[in-house]
């Protein structure tokens, strides 16, 4: 029985088997809750328990876990996040991706700490979770619909605006390996291809509505602390600017620093950056702010194209990653086209980062004659040609012609065209996020050792190394990467957004205070960090069991081979010898073998049961 925990959990996981159409509520115990905390922790553990049974990421045997955290839905800044975990279609290894919006809070209000989906529905369906009532509803009429249309369709069918919907677009249905799950209009679980997992299960959408109280041990304490938090955030000198531009301010920051990926990572300064930056957006396109549940920072920008070819296009976004991968990285300087591309990716349900990097690779391949025009269906692929780029994105989502190859992601592209290896920037089959790593070798290590592939959310060390890195030893670099890979996943376990901490100097110890207040058990930040640190061994185990080892822990060859062109770091590449040293030291500190494998007894520490 639960003795200590007085809040944070309903102690219920909703388990849905789409093959039989049946759902059941699985309870879990206090030890499980405290050890894995929630979100990414619950997801990784449940995936680990099922690993032996999973034949392939797109097979009905795969499990998809949607898990908010113990702080999700509460009255505190950024309490919006929900984590999606599954064996990833893009990489074949541990995969996760999170989304904000209102879906996670609603799922918690329905009384569940996690939702687990297995099996495969006979025909296209959606899942309807109405508090305690759960139903799998046939929905052939939603076939082929965009994610935004599907969300509207489900809300209309259920005749309520008071529900939250997560849906996939046509790309998810077509099993594009970087398909997203889109919720609350434009909040995507973008990476790893979680949308394809839903597609493989014939599940077009998940609708949820809940009205339950969220368990909190010390309610007055929560109110007081959040009043202080809201005051702290709004007093930050960058608060207002952040509300105005959100992540779009990063374009200028990186372009000035000489780190804005341009034309498939060939250059680091985009000559038209002023055409795609936050000020351009504010002046000509922005019509409103939007925020995830419970967040005062409202980093979402709602933009409208008021004239020209894309007139009438409305999108929530872009944020930095999309503006870079669909903008500078493709040589596109027309902001309206970026908005259109962003809206298209949301609706088709594909990841803007993977799509942008793959399209950029194609353009460069055609330009440098690594591919012939006929190999790309005779398309006139060139930098900045937004029309052709849009067409290629459509082809990916619909799996037409060359799009069918790209839709299977980097691994498939390299299998078909090995000559693209030097120019396709990826790790473990995941296309790299929009931050260069050549001027900051710690970022190269961050990409190499990120548990899902070349993604920036596990560790982002660019800013710190640019500021202070010249004095760093290798050990400093490894330490900062591991610290990031510990604290950032902690946010994913608690179910909160990391941006208040990153952008507005929100003290990370505040989250330990929150967890203590909510759970009723005093915790220090170190207590929580230890659980997050151990979890990195678990996600590594999942991936090593699927064949990952040292050989996979490198950023794309381009980071070692092609010197930076443009900006103050001109000529820099990642030093291979130093990288090997960093990797050795990294494994040593993790307690993994020289080949990057955790010791055999590690698995036993995760053999505990849910109850």
């Amino acid at each position, binding site marked *: 029985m639960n003795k200590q925990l007085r809040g944070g959990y309903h102690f219920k996981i909703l388990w849905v088997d789409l093959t039989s159409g049946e759902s059941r509520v699985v309870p879990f115990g206090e030890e499980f809750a405290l050890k894995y905390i929630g979100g990414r922790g619950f997801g990784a553990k449940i995936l680990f328990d099922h690993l032996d049974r999973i034949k392939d990421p797109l097979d009905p045997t795969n499990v998809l876990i949607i898990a908010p955290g113990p702080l999700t*839905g*509460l*009255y505190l800044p950024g309490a919006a996040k929900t984590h999606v975990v599954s064996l990833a279609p893009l990489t074949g290894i541990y995969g996760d991706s999170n989304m904000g919006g*209102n879906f996670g*809070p609603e799922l918690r*209000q329905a009384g569940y700490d996690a939702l687990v989906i297995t099996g495969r529905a006979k025909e296209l369906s959606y899942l309807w979770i109405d508090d305690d009532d759960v139903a799998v509803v046939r929905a052939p009429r939603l076939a082929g619909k965009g994610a*935004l249309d599907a969300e509207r369709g489900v809300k209309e069918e259920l005749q309520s*605006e008071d529900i939250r919907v997560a849906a996939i677009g046509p790309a998810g249905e077509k099993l594009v390996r970087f398909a997203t799950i889109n919720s*609350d*209009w*434009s909040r995507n679980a973008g990476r790893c291809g979680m949308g394809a997992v839903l597609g493989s299960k014939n599940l077009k959408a998940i609708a949820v509505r*809940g*009205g*339950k*109280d*969220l368990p*909190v041990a010390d*309610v007055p304490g*929560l*109110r007081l602390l959040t*009043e202080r938090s*809201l005051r702290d*955030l*709004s007093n930050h000198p960058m608060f207002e600017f952040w*509300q105005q531009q959100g992540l779009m301010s990063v374009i200028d920051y990186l372009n000035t620093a000489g780190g804005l990926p341009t034309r498939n990572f060939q250059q680091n300064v985009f000559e038209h950056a002023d055409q795609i930056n936050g000020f351009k957006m504010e002046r000509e396109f922005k*019509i*409103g*702010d*939007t*925020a*995830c*549940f*419970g*967040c*005062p*920072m*409202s980093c*979402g920008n*709602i933009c*409208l194209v008021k004239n020209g070819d894309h007139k009438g296009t*409305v*999108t*929530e976004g872009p944020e930095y990653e999309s503006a870079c991968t669909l903008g500078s990285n493709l040589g596109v300087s027309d902001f309206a086209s970026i908005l259109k591309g962003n809206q298209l990716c949301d609706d088709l349900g594909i990841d803007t980062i993977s799509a942008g990097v793959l399209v950029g690779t194609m353009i460069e391949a055609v330009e440098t004659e690594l591919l012939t025009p006929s190999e790309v269906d005779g398309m006139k692929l060139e930098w900045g040609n937004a029309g052709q780029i849009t067409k290629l994105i459509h082809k990916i989502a619909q799996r037409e012609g060359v799009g069918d190859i790209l839709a299977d992601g980097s691994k498939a592209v390299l299998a078909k065209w090995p000559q693209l290896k030097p120019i396709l920037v990826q790790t473990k089959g995941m296309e790299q996020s929009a931050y260069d790593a050549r001027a900051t070798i710690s970022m190269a290590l961050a990409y190499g050792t990120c548990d899902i592939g070349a993604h920036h959310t596990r560790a982002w060390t660019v800013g710190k190394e640019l500021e202070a890195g010249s004095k760093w030893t290798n050990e400093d670099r490894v330490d900062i990467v591991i610290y990031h890979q510990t604290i950032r996943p902690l946010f994913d376990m608690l179910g909160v957004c990391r941006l208040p901490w990153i952008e507005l100097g929100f003290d990370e110890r505040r989250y330990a205070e929150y967890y203590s207040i909510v759970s009723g058990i005093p915790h220090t930040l170190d207590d929580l960090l230890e659980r997050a640190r151990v979890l990195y061994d678990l996600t590594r185990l999942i991936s090593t069991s699927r064949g990952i080892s040292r050989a996979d822990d490198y950023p794309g060859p381009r980071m070692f081979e092609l010197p930076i062109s443009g900006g103050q770091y001109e000529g820099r590449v990642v030093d291979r010898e130093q990288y090997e040293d960093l990797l050795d030291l990294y494994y040593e500190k993790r307690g993994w073998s020289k080949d990057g494998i955790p010791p055999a007894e590690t698995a036993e520490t995760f053999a505990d049961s849910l109850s």
Partner: protein
Amino acid sequence: MPKRLSVVPERCSGCRLCESACALQHFGVSNPKKSAVRVIALYPHPTIRMPVVCRQCSHPKCRENCPTDAIYIDNGIVKIDPEKCVSCRQCVISCPFGAIFVHDDVPTPFKCDLCGGHPACVQACPKGALQYVPEHELGEANRVASVLRYAHMKEVEYVEKGEPKKLRYAQIGREQSE
């Protein structure tokens, strides 16, 4: 001077901090579904986020339609008397704004009571989309805007290098910024 809870939808980001704060204030729980203010978000056409909350009408439809006279006005605030209320929910569907709410756990419909003059939602709103202002200020933004619109259409005559010219207020400052 009586004060009014006023909504500026253009500023709302849809974060729902107001909902959480309201439910904590009135029911002591973290549950936006027990809030007397609700944010409705529509997308993509038209795009809007807007908090819905009681306007404390002087001639409330909810009171007019209440079969048991449970609704009364106390010092400008529309209130529901739980003793008289039979929970028929007539008020919920009568309110033209949809600003009266129900929840399974709560015996009678509930609505905004302005928190005794210090609305928790206003304090929590990070965007200034909810304002608690003296009644006479309502509409002031529109009054000023309409005067500005008129003024911007006006033309000022002046002479430059001996030539008479006309300038519209609306043009001033535009040249430099472009």
